[in-house]
């Protein structure tokens, strides 16, 4: 085998080994979160019922937090509801997070959504 091919294969092996180790570390961390009953932040694609189910709160609490009438069984994602209300989805998520936080004083609050890289990017 030509030496450059051998070097290339060795480099590829080391790269795959590193990548696989990264997945192992992430698997351990996520498995711990799974056993601790945690989940990720509230997302735009989630529905009111799903959020209520995730955080074990009544759906009406979320309805009230985002200005929907009680018992409104809206099956749409909150991102679509925000668009219809002419509001920023992040604003809706913040309102829901605060309402859940207030309703479950002893429990850890829902994690904050990760910052949007597009918003963080400096202006050209």
């Amino acid at each position, binding site marked *: 085998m030509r030496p450059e091919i051998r070097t290339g294969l060795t480099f590829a*092996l080391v790269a795959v080994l590193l990548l696989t180790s990264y*997945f192992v570390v992430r698997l351990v961390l*996520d498995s711990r979160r*799974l056993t601790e*009953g945690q989940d990720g932040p509230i997302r735009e694609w989630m529905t009111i019922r799903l959020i209520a189910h995730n955080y074990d709160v009544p759906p009406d609490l979320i309805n009230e937090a985002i200005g929907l009438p009680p018992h409104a069984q809206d099956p749409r994602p909150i991102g679509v509801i925000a668009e219809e209300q002419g509001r920023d989805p992040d604003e809706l998520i913040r309102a829901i997070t605060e309402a859940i936080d207030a309703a479950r004083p002893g429990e850890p609050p829902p994690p904050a959504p990760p910052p949007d890289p597009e918003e963080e990017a400096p202006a050209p």
Partner: protein
Amino acid sequence: MSLNDFILLVMVQYGLPVLFGGVFIAAVGVPLPRGILLITAGSFIALDEWPLGGVIILSLTAAMAGDVMGYMIGRWGSDALVSRVSRWGGGEERLQQAEDLFRRWGGIGIFNSRWLMSPIGPVVNLTSGLTHYPPVAFFILSFLGEALWVVLYVGFGWMFSNQIQVISNVISNWSGIMVGLVVMVVLVQLLRRFGRNGRNATLARERSTSTSQDKTS
């Protein structure tokens, strides 16, 4: 909004047709997060918002349609593609060797790439077609693997319906590890085989040099 979030938003808004389309496109080879689509569908089944039977049948049909299309592209794709792959892989002889190898070990690969290492599924579909793996066997193995995949992923979504983001991460990390291990085994095999070939070539060179020296003396 990330691509995953956007796809999930569209799926939650429009329901099963988007699930079908997403799973089909991902099975053909477009890098879409088909696992998280099924896990999310499982959580909506747990909430009694989506029908269990509908999700299972549509996902399985979409995955099978995508697999068969990938196989057909590999098998009956343009001659240019086949000859290019064949040339890239070392010529007709190598392609024949790959065919033999795939006939012997491809069954396990096809089955496992449906559920255990799903990121490499589209490549296996194409390779199965390219190496003329028997179509009936391909279909049966694909069906069994995809059925297991659908049941497992929907089941995980249903079981961990209040933790779908974390369970999706756990499963995708697991898939990544499996694919990584397979790629490492392949690379080690290649290094060993080429190393052997290199040693043999060196030995042959040394032998021919010593023979020619004997003749001259």
